[in-house]
């Protein structure tokens, strides 16, 4: 069974690690192009057709640089924390159905929604550790801001994710995705909007991108990293964006399921998944370009005084509407 070729192919090549790797870089290119066009510029243009190979060139260049470990850093944690956080995120994505089945086949189990949210939290904790192990005041501040923001916004995120779980009647992502004969964005639009806003904070994008606010904390937790470890930190951040968008697709947009026109259903499921994911990435990037950065105390106020009550309200509303209104209508 270990040498089951199908299993190995799925995990390592498609839709597993290799595909995710290149897809993350593709999403990074999409983001950079959108940001550039919003700012009236062109963005990466000359690396490959239309600049599409730019993120790949960045990663390869980082991997070929000299590796420096600062003298005062906690060396073991400094070296392995970036890789561990990257691996955890890849592991978390492998539970999401991409082409009708998850990357690790037959891996879904009851409650895996909560499981992967917990995995993401652990991945961010390892990011915090990498900043903490850097022995640099800017890394310390960046890391602690990251953790404060992430842990704070995790709570409304989980509460908002419970809305589609309630509508589907299960905590398993595969079932939530499969039971959306009508995508939940239509059934619970309030939850969708709030989820996107909370996701901006979880992914540290404007207006919530304080952990890497260049003008205040230089490089944030990444300040002391160079070479391969920096590549992994950047990939972790990019892959988190893919993960967040994938989660939105699964929970609110019907997962990979959509009309199948001819041939293999798996191909069409995969296509729909990619299209929906790109749509979410575009929306979040637009939000990033349109706002200034908030201060940390404003971010915390937004969380505890605005988003948390609203997310509880959204859950209540969803429960009320689903129990009393929808059975009458459909």
């Amino acid at each position: 069974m270990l040498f089951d070729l199908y299993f190995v192919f799925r995990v390592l090549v498609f839709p597993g690690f290799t595909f995710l790797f290149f897809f993350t870089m593709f999403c990074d290119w999409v983001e950079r192009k959108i940001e550039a066009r919003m700012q009236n510029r062109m963005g990466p243009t000359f690396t490959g057709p239309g600049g599409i190979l730019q993120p790949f060139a960045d990663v390869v260049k980082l991997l070929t640089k000299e590796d420096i470990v600062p003298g005062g850093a906690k060396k073991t944690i400094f070296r392995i924390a970036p890789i561990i956080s990257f691996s955890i995120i890849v592991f978390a994505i492998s539970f999401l159905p991409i082409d009708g089945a998850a990357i690790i086949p037959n891996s879904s189990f009851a409650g895996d929604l909560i499981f992967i949210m917990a995995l993401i939290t652990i991945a961010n904790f390892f990011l915090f550790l990498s900043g903490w192990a850097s022995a640099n005041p800017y890394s310390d501040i960046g890391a602690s801001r990251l953790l404060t923001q992430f842990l704070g916004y995790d709570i409304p995120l989980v509460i908002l994710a419970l809305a589609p779980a309630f509508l589907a009647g299960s905590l398993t992502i595969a079932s939530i995705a499969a039971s959306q004969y009508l995508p939940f964005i239509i059934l619970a639009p309030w939850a969708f909007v709030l989820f996107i806003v909370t996701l901006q904070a979880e992914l540290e994008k404007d207006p919530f991108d304080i952990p890497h606010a260049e003008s205040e904390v230089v490089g944030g937790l990444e300040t002391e990293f160079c070479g391969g470890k920096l590549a992994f930190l950047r990939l972790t951040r990019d892959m988190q964006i893919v993960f967040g968008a994938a989660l939105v697709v699964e929970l609110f947009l019907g997962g990979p399921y959509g009309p199948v026109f001819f041939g293999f259903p798996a191909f069409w499921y995969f296509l729909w998944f990619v299209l929906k994911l790109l749509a979410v990435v575009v929306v979040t990037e637009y939000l990033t370009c349109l706002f200034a950065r908030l201060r940390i105390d404003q971010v915390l106020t937004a969380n505890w005084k605005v988003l948390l009550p609203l997310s509880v309200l959204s859950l209540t509303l969803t429960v009320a509407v689903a129990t009393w209104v929808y059975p009458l209508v459909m």
Partner: protein
Amino acid sequence: MSKLAMWARLKSPWVLHFNSGACNGCDIEVVALLTPRFDVERFGIKLEPSPRHADVLLVTGSVTQQCAERLKRIYDQMPEPKFVVAIGACACSGGVFKGNYNVLNGVDKVIPVNAYIPGCPPKPEAIIDGVVKLLNSLKPEKPAKKEKKK
């Protein structure tokens, strides 16, 4: 593999900007490179905040006494392979401040320089030209191309 590495290095040069005692003229032209009219992100050039992330150090200004040690320290913090570009007449040779008591005349008195871009201040097009020339000088010698028949 090394061809891939060379390609990646040429296509993704991340820069760090340091002002070692300049009048700001060159610095605002360097920042203008990021703006829509010149947009160096097309070439993959990004302005990085930390010396550890950068490949190319853009230095402006005729190095003052106070900045000399800091400049050396920043250069040491950058990982190999790294390059230094001296922008402006002051960074090349001291410029109009040559001989003043607080000034070491030029960047190459402190750290090795790979490219000199003269001007006071050099136009952004000249800066881009200088960086491109630096990148091209890294490519290994190619055999001469055959003439295409028209």
